[in-house]
């Protein structure tokens, strides 16, 4: 995979011009992924701090079991989605690759990042226009979706392998994570911190998407729905 000179996607653009940016699989993945993460964070939180005790016979209840089932099912969707998304980064258009590549060697990308940061600090009157992700968003997406996603998948499947037992494929592939991070309890802690990282990202991400949709010179939310970015001026 080569990093394209304009992986950051800045363009010369005229008002009203529309560009097709996010292909179907990327958009589908985005919404499926967002749903998974909400499910995983909610169920994960109550796995660590369970709901109040339920009354009745143990045999008549399976609350924790269902919660864990929901977590693990969403986890599979999340992990498989992640793999499919990597596949699409290889075969899709260059915007599909953005999520997995940080153009750290590109000075223009860095200056764009600081411009965006100043825009968020109200120090710039206007944001720049981008066909793909703006550099600031790109940076945090890479950190809290790509890197944190890998962390969650590795620690998550390592924990899952503990239940599946020695010799399961989860244990064979990810079991090494447990001694590597210093034991099962430590893996729980990393997995847990990872959740908070992603939750913080999601809060800011959703806010930024709505804000940019209103205040910047290009469409945002509709872009993630239809795939088409329209410039307003």
């Amino acid at each position: 995979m080569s990093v394209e000179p304009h992986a950051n996607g800045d363009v010369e653009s005229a008002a009203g011009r529309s560009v097709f940016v996010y292909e179907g699989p990327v958009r589908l993945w985005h919404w499926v992924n967002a749903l998974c993460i909400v499910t995983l964070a909610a169920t994960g939180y109550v796995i660590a701090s369970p709901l109040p005790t339920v009354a009745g016979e143990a045999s008549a209840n399976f609350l924790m079991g269902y919660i864990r089932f929901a977590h693990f099912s969403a986890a599979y969707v999340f992990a498989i989605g992640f793999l499919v998304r990597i596949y699409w980064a290889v075969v899709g258009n260059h915007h599909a690759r953005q999520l997995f590549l940080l153009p750290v060697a590109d000075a223009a990308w860095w200056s764009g990042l600081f411009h965006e940061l100043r825009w968020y600090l109200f120090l710039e009157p206007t944001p720049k226009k981008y066909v793909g992700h703006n550099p600031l968003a790109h940076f945090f997406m890479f950190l809290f979706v790509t890197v944190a996603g890998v962390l969650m998948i590795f620690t998550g499947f390592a924990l899952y392998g503990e239940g599946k037992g020695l010799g399961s494929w989860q244990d064979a592939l990810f079991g090494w994570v447990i001694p590597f991070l210093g034991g099962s309890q430590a893996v729980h802690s990393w997995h847990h911190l990872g959740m908070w990282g992603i939750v913080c990202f999601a809060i800011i991400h959703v806010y930024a998407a709505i804000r940019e949709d209103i205040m910047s010179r290009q469409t945002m939310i509709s872009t993630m729905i239809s795939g088409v970015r329209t410039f307003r001026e």
Partner: protein
Amino acid sequence: MVETFYETLRRQGITRRSFVKFCSLTATSLGLGPAFAPKIAHALETKPRTPVIWLHGLECTCCSESFIRSAHPLAKDVVLSMLSLDYDDTLMAAAGHQAEAILDEITKKYKGNYILAVEGNPPLNEDGMYCIHGGRPFVEVLKETAKDCKAIISWGACASWGCVQAAKPNPTQAVPVHKVITDKPIIKVPGCPPIAEVMTGVVTYVLTFDRIPELDRQGRPKMFYGQRIHDKCYRRPHFDAGQFVEQWDDDSARKGYCLYKMGCKGPTTYNACSTVRWNGGVSFPIQSGHGCIGCSEEGFWDKGGFYERVTDIKQFGVESNADKVGGTVAAVAGVAVAAHAAVSALKRARSGSGAGKTEQGDR
């Protein structure tokens, strides 16, 4: 001519009948089928006896205490007879120079052919002066004795992971055995102490089959450390149902619900307590109403409170855990977002038409 195990046992006054019983008992406790009993008997009758040297470093002797309380008197007698002739400074009859002479003799006579069992661990600070064995730093004795051994059994959390003497800040720089001896096969039998039946099971396996049992990634015998307490806990149905002890002495505690919320470390601890249990299968911590403290896990003293499910993270302040750290950051993020939105709205209202005009230099 070196004696076989059988000859030693007979000389110690153990009857043939007891010996055969012991073989079937061992086959069972190791999880092998009945067909293995004669194989064990045959091995013990024909194989030359492998001596075991049992060294004590920085420790509290709880491993020995556990070991000699092995539930089945038969197993205990036999296993002790297998060991007692050789060197164990706590259990042997000899003392002083006489005892040290035995150590010397075994390591020479059985060069490359004896098992070294280590209880406790060597402290390295001040050239090892925090643990003296027969007038010398224990770490030296350990290295010397390990040089010609066939394999090492690391008894307990001390020898396997370091345990309390290696807990932060570890002033004596106590380290587990595998940090000092790197060229010998090491069987870790962690626990504080390990379960007696697990200890005798491991010794018997090594001595009868003349090989080390199958180990997991961290060097523990799979047959005893292959599953977590949580996987075989009899309170597990209450966990799955969502029925927890919320406070000591509440109604749930009386009903015997799951101790997860009281910080039970069963879900992160590999040991056989929930199957083998303690004191001859009488009970184990969870059965007595207290959560597992995870004593067979690496660094369990430094893994947060025994009564907290989510571990404290010391780096983030005196006492904090992932929820407090994450919750705080998320709350800050939420407030920041709200404030930012307010300022954005204000700016937008003031400038009238929202975003400014096209800026030069856009690419």
